[in-house]
């Protein structure tokens, strides 16, 4: 009885001793950021055409595709003196509630104009929930490049064309 207990204790001590001589695996986040997988889905971006017009035409297809209903689009009509997008209509209001978003990427798939794409940033904490509602201006702004991305060549799954520029 006592013998078997001693053997068990001895075995577990052995495990502990073995681990003492192994190297550390702790990563010093946030000082060190591990590169994310190239197709990692993080905070969204709204994209512009080269001529500066918004790609988004306010069609609400992304909102329709979103499984958690966290996108709100209110469209309006472009006019000669207020041309925002290339088509007849544009998104007057475009909001994503990132506290509800599950980063599924359906919005990106639904968009007929590659206007909304998911970037790589995942550091989205805020002190207030309402700050997690990203407005059009925030989504249009250049992403704060904080997240390193792993080299796509290391992986055999292709990155979609609309994600390669992120």
């Amino acid at each position: 009885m006592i013998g078997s207990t001693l053997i068990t204790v001895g075995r577990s001590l052995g495990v502990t001793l073995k681990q003492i001589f192994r190297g550390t695996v702790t990563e010093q986040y946030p000082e060190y950021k591990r590169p994310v997988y190239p197709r990692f889905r993080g905070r969204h971006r709204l994209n512009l055409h080269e001529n500066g017009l918004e790609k988004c035409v306010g069609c609400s297809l992304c909102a329709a595709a979103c499984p958690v209903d966290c996108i709100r689009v209110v469209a309006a009509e472009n006019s000669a003196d207020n041309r925002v997008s290339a088509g007849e209509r544009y998104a007057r209001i475009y909001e994503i509630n990132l506290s509800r978003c599950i980063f599924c990427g359906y919005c990106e798939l639904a968009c007929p104009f590659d206007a909304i794409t998911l970037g790589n940033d995942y550091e989205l904490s805020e002190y207030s929930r309402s700050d997690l509602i990203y407005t059009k201006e925030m989504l249009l702004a250049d992403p704060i490049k904080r997240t390193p991305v792993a080299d796509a060549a290391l992986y055999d799954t292709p990155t979609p064309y609309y994600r390669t520029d992120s």
Partner: protein
Amino acid sequence: MSAPELVGGSAADRERIAHELVTVTIDGRQVQVPKGTGLVEAAAAAGVEIPVFCYEPRVGAGIGACRMCLVEIEGMPKLQTGCTTPVTDGMVVHTAGTSEQAAAGQSATMEFLLLNHPLDCPVCDKGGECALQDLSFRYGSGKTRMTFRKRSLEKPIPISPTIALDRERCIMCFRCTRFSQEVAQDEELSAVNRGALSMIATFEDEPYRGPFSGNVTELCPVGALTSTQYRFKARPWEYEQAASVCGLCPVGCNVAVQSREGRVQRVLSRNHPEVDRGWLCDKGRFSYSHLYSEERILTPRRRGVRELEELGWEQALDELEGMIERAQGEVVLALSGSETLELAYALAKIVRQGAGSDRVVLPEQAADALDPFRVPISALAEAEEIVVFEECPVLDRAPLIELWLKQARRNGAHVTRIGPSGDIQRGRGEAALACQELAEKESALGKRLRAAERAILLWSGGGGAGGCHLAALAHALGLHEKEGSGALLLPASPNARGVAEAWAAAGDENRQPRQIGLLVVSGDEAASEPQVRQLAEHARATVALTLFAGDSGEWADLVLPATGYLERSGTMRNLEGRLQRLRGATGSPARRELSWLAELAGRLGVDLPGSEAALFTELSAKVLDGISLASLGDRAPLPPRVEAQTFEAARAESPPTLLGGPLELIRYRALFSGPEVEHVPELSFQRPAAEVEISPEDADRRGISGGNEVVVRSNGTRVTLRARINAALLPGMVRVAAEHCAELARGVEVSRP
């Protein structure tokens, strides 16, 4: 299967045909359908879908324009269009589901339809509810062989301030032109050019001006005709929908009110086949934006030293309570007839039970005299003889009835109009006399009416003693004994009958105050009535419940914000006597009337529930034979006819003699007028022009020709208007829209300035 619609032919023909059944086989399924049924309906009865674009039985028989409905029929060498082929006995049909030839034909059609189609679904308002999207998704190839540039045209073209046309998207199904030419018969839309260059256009690019134009935006299967008000407002999957009833005229068209983010975005038809058959007038369709007019008042206002000043609800109710107390039972309630039964009942209860007064100003006289002659509006389409006592144009009072009259005429009915500009010209106030003449045995028209199997009488105008004159005639003609015959009164206000009932339900005493201590005016229509305005001058205090402070703001001591009919829940009684439910589409930016009325009732010690449903139950127990709200359903049934009684008809009197001038002024409320329309900028092009209509004789005598500027005068009031010669108008009469009448009296003189 619902009864298939048979188009064309006389009513008798259709009846005979409907009894013969034929057997057809569609995709291996056998069905028996009445002879003459179209192939599309027969297939639907067999549970097989034949896709269509241009086919729409409500605008007439199939024309085979789009070729989407191609099917193979055994024994016929080529593919046939299902929408133009009536079934015959023993016909064997293969649709695209079972026939390769038909499938190939259909997919070629689809490809042709998309040949020049821009496929700009993401910016297209129809996207999400588009027949072309749906059918290309299900029947299209999914791949395109078109590598060339598509046709591109100027777009969108505003064909009227309310409708935008995108010619690139048009698939040339001719639904809109057929509606314009065959249903509304306004001949405004037509197709110009030929072949690939054909397109829809209005005459010389003039705006599409017609009371029913908006229907084309709902008929168009693609996004070629869209509403400018709804432009880019919402997607079909984003709105909430309320199954309500239009509260702007006594027809009570069934509408679907669609709102997004708490705002009404559009009003569509909900097709009650007995009432509106899926059509709406432009007033009902486009007026909703009055709710968001800047001029709408949202808080109570009190007459201050110089102008109206805002105050809180608590204060307003204090003020109102004080007013009622000071009036000491001398309270008069003026109703518009646009209230729901529940609202009118709540107001009546406060006045009758809380303020201890029993005097009311009803919008017009209402009676149940016509109940034995009740018919659904749709019976007009089947009638053989229709007589309209038309002192006010039917179009202005109940626009949809005009559409049904057109349909009746197309179906072969005789429509006789009796009135100042009718087929039989009678002066104003002579309709009751005309009624008596028709009832006499030797009248030729009377004889025709007696001989007809289905005859309907309509009364459009005042002075009908709540329908009693018409009821006497209908009784004399025996219309209560014939199915499909009847008589209808077109009231001037949407719920005239309902508010009278509600008033009666709230008390049965008769305490008439000698003076007016407090005048309670409900609704903008009542506030703009000259008669109510006069009462207000005699009243010690006035309170008005209105959407806008335009009229009431001039004389009311307290103005309380009202809610609009699209925000209200409740019931209304339409001109047939059908009780229909309104369901509020959105909350109201102003406090709900019933909420503060209940609070006020509490202060006055009156027991008044604050919910529509509870009020209805109370009302129903008192005056509606205990019917339940649920029994009204989404498409309300017509109450059965009541037993006809013989009664002594009121004697028709000749109209009083004119004072003030030799010409009689007919002041009419035009269709596109009223508080709602006045606050919709898109509808201003439809509003009545500042014109006076005059007969050619009277114009000649005064040296006036069409387009001249003339002065209309009576008792010191002068109004300058443009003359329009109306050859159909009885000499001695002139017509002016109420909004251009100012204070003109009944007798006027017209002269060149």
